[in-house]
């Protein structure tokens, strides 16, 4: 197990290196220029000013030199300054990281709290009206885009209660009510879609396990149905569910672009999209590396969890 863990951790390095190289190349292939963009709102900024600023930002250096600077920075954990704002990239990310983490955790908790019981009930009550209702509910979550649900949620709150979620983020330890009254809405909207995927997965996974011999044996032993379902069926059907939930969690970390915009949540997804649009190479590179790291790390944790949840899985 130890060797497996060390091996997996070491494998992260080439993966992240590959991501870094790809991001560096793709950003420079895409047309556009951060300096020209920064001055695009005024028609009176001459080309020489733009050229001079490009020089100052190091954008006129040969690509191999820019790449060497970037790699040197990664080794030193120095991701440089944002080309758009001039502030350190780590500072730009730090301010939004807590919000994205909290939103991802809240959404995951809500999704899991919905998906596990609903999925199990749907499986146990297969083909009954309860199953159909849950199916409609979960397919609805898959079919409706989160941003649309978000707009609907805000409109409903404004129209019915003349109230909208707070515009400014307050950390949960400063004011839990204010914090939750901002983040609960996007978490609900995202959590609903997220729960839909997990509910479907839980249902099919539990259904498969319910037909296994050991479940029949458990029932034959006279165990209570709740014990059969929770201890025997659910636990053994959790592997695919955990995979789905974890990967969704990793996605939520930076993938809530539109939902963040709709709810005006100052998270990492919005930051990434703005950075791409502004051709802020340094910020995009750092963010993509961060998201990749989260993905790779969450995958690694899931693989380790497999062994914990299912004793038959052994890593050599």
């Amino acid at each position: 197990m130890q060797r497996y863990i060390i091996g997996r951790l070491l494998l992260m390095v080439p993966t992240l290196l590959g991501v870094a190289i790809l991001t560096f190349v793709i950003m420079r292939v895409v047309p556009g220029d951060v300096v020209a963009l920064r001055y695009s709102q005024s028609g009176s900024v001459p080309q020489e000013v733009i050229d001079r600023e490009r020089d100052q930002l190091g954008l006129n250096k040969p690509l191999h030199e820019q790449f060497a600077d970037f790699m040197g920075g990664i080794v030193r954990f120095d991701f440089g300054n944002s080309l758009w704002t001039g502030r350190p990239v780590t500072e730009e990310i730090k301010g939004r990281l807590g919000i994205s983490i909290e939103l991802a955790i809240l959404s995951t908790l809500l999704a899991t709290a919905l998906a596990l019981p609903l999925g199990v009930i749907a499986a146990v009550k297969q083909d009954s009206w309860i199953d159909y209702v849950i199916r409609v509910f979960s397919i609805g979550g898959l079919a409706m885009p989160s941003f649309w649900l978000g707009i609907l949620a805000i409109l409903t709150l404004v129209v019915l209660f003349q109230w909208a979620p707070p515009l400014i983020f307050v950390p949960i330890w400063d004011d839990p009510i204010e914090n939750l009254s901002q983040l609960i809405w996007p978490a609900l909207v995202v959590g609903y879609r997220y729960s839909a995927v997990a509910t479907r997965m839980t249902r099919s996974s539990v259904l498969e396990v319910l037909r296994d011999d050991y479940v029949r044996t458990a029932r034959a032993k006279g165990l209570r149905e709740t014990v059969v379902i929770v201890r025997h069926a659910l636990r053994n059907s959790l592997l695919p569910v955990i995979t789905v939930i974890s990967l969704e969690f990793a996605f939520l970390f930076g993938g809530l672009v539109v939902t963040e915009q709709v709810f005006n949540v100052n998270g990492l997804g919005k930051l990434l999209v703005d950075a791409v649009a502004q051709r802020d190479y340094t910020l995009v590179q750092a963010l993509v590396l961060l998201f990749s790291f989260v993905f790779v790390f969450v995958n690694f944790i899931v693989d380790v969890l497999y062994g914990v949840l299912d004793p038959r899985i052994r890593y050599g």
Partner: protein
Amino acid sequence: MPQRILMAFAALSLIVSACTPQQPAAPTAAPPTAAGASPTQAPLPTGETPRMGGVLTYIVSAAPPTFDGHQSTTFATLMPVSPHYSLLYRLDPADNVSKIIPDVADGLPQVSSDKLTYTIKLKSNVKFHDGTTLTSADVVATYQKIMKPPEGVTSPRQGVYAAVESVTASDPSTVVFKLKFAAGSFLASIASPWNYLYSAAKLKEDPKFYVKNIMGTGPFTFIEYVPGSHWSGRKFADYFDKPKPYLDAYRAVIIGDPARQTAAIRSKQALIEFRGFTPTQRDELSRALGQDLAIQEASWVCVNYVAFNTTVKPFDDERVRRALTLAVDRWSGGEALSKQTIVKAVGGLMRPGGPFAMSDADLEKIPGFYRDNAKAVEEAKKLLADAGVADLTFKFHNRNITTPYEPVALFLINEWKKIGVTATHEVKETAAYLADLRNKNFEVGLDFNCDYFDEPDLQLSKFRSASGLGKGLNFSHYDDPKLDGMIDAQARETDPEKRKQLVWEIERYAMGEKAWMVPVIWWNRIIPYIATVRGYRIGSNHYTTMDMANIWIAEER
């Protein structure tokens, strides 16, 4: 059970009704002094005494890329940052269009008879937020940074001050600008909203101090900036123009999504947005808020241009360019488009209604502005046939911003169909769109320009030769020494009437004869806001009078 089903249906129908577009509100839905009246009138109650106190929360639709106004070209800096700074001169908040008044200057400048020397006295009671007194040395250091920035510091408007030979302090309260040549735009250029006055001592310590720090003489001191979220400031007790500011504090909240902006005003989380809303947003707010909403509208020193890539055929042929401008019925277009997007008035190269605007009667004589569109269409068809491109097709290059670019582009494409021209709408994200415009990688494109003032030197800068002073600005990529000469001549003319004549000559030549780059329809600013906000007068731009010194909040009725 049936009760539950009924309740579910009721909830669903509420949600659906909230999302269904509604009919525009009847004009009576809004108060006569505000939304319901002629939308161009300013609903400013008169005779009220400003109320002290309160916090103004307003929306800014983008985050500031820098704190340094001298280095910025975006409203995203001006809107949150301006309350911390003063200017030498400024636009009058009560006439936010053309009247320049002193800010820290103690009166208008004394101008020498040859119009080459401007002597400016400063008010003696102007304090920086650190308690030091503003002197002429601070003004000189500020303007030297703008005009001749030190190594490593960018100053995008450096070229605007090409006429200035020197700026010096003759005593601690007097600044003297000496010009190389008389310039009609000089006063406007020192009333630029970007020219925040900085501390000479701070600039000496670090020329980049103001990129990441705030320390001015404005009505509000800095509290905090949370990147991407909000910016806030509190009243500066030693502000020189007492009893201003009236507010205790302000908070600029960054909201990019238009739907969320509307929801923020509708729920009164924010009281105003200073850049401008669309007619749809205005109507939605008007329906929802009724008497609680005030609306001001004004024509905007912003316009879209059709840029022709004159380095490729057939757009190097002025007959083709003229045909394409002739086909566009701007008069009908302005009226129709104003109902759905932020364009309205028809004008030439200077803002319609502005001090340099040509009269409609004169404008109508220029190709592309004829009232008789049928005649224009015939003339355009003939020009295309003469040029050998009667069935012209091209890609029309545009950016992926809906307001107003998309409707304006679709309008143009539709107009060109009338003369047998097929244009395909090619939409790109802003960075790629700009790169294409700069690199001549397009045929015909939709360009734009926004300025803070009606000033020919600003609005005509895009029309200078692409290989000269127009490099990076002139996306039609032409060189025209004659036009350069005409632009120079108007810049050096100090008699306002003579200058107007020169500007109109330029318009007739550049738009009508050569059709190098032609304006479409000028933008229209719409500011719907909670009616308790007072002291704000809409201007023809979204850059000036952003220091919030005059704004106050009335008690709710």
